């Protein structure tokens, strides 16, 4: 029913987080990456509709799985606090 959206690679010590821009606007994902840049090395791949964010924590103490899900929560917070929900709704009207 639901795909794996957060894949932690323990060997490479990074986490892949895939997004659906129908629910998570691109600009909010970028903003979150920028805010996480203090604690993680980051990269983005994939395409405009389903970007994949790669986060590699600077510290070994950070749990990779939790990092991925925290990133999801953080993007949700940006969407809610910066009033982006109306933009998402407008796209489907």
């Amino acid at each position, binding site marked *: *029913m*639901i*795909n794996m*959206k*957060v894949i932690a690679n323990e060997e490479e010590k990074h986490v892949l987080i895939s997004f*659906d821009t*129908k*629910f*998570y606007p691109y600009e909010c994902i970028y903003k979150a990456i920028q805010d996480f840049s203090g604690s993680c090395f980051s990269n983005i791949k994939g395409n405009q509709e389903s970007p994949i964010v790669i986060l590699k924590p600077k510290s070994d103490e950070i749990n990779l799985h*939790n990092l991925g*899900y*925290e990133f*999801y*929560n953080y993007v*949700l*917070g940006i*969407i*809610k606090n910066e009033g982006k*929900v*109306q933009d*998402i*709704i407008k*796209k*489907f009207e």
Partner: protein
Amino acid sequence: MEDDVFTIDNLEIHKKDNFVIISVNPKMYSLEVIYSAAYTFIDRAYILIEGNPSEEVLIQIRPKTSNINPEILGREFNNELLNYMVYMQRTLKSQSIREAIMLRVLNINPQVKPSSSVPNTGSEVYIEDPEKIAKPWRPHD
């Protein structure tokens, strides 16, 4: 379906992996309501939203700690959806009243601009005197 996955109403509970997927019809609850309800859980759980925004929205809720029952979180999410739905409906209903109150508040002390037809004489009070008979009052005149 696996043994550790069972469905109750709109909840798909993954007991082994300790998460729940809530299926929401966006025609019943708007995206605004869904995002608002999801936002209230970010201190207790990890939230993932996916699906189709016009047909079915799937919200995955993973408790941050293992002592939280995902089924209870799912049911709380349903309650939260209802809460926000009622809140949004009330907001829409009272919108015109709020606008009227705000308009009244803003108009209660209007700043009247001086008319451009009144010449600026330098004094605070201007009295029209077409026959030029007005004199300033002095007590010993």
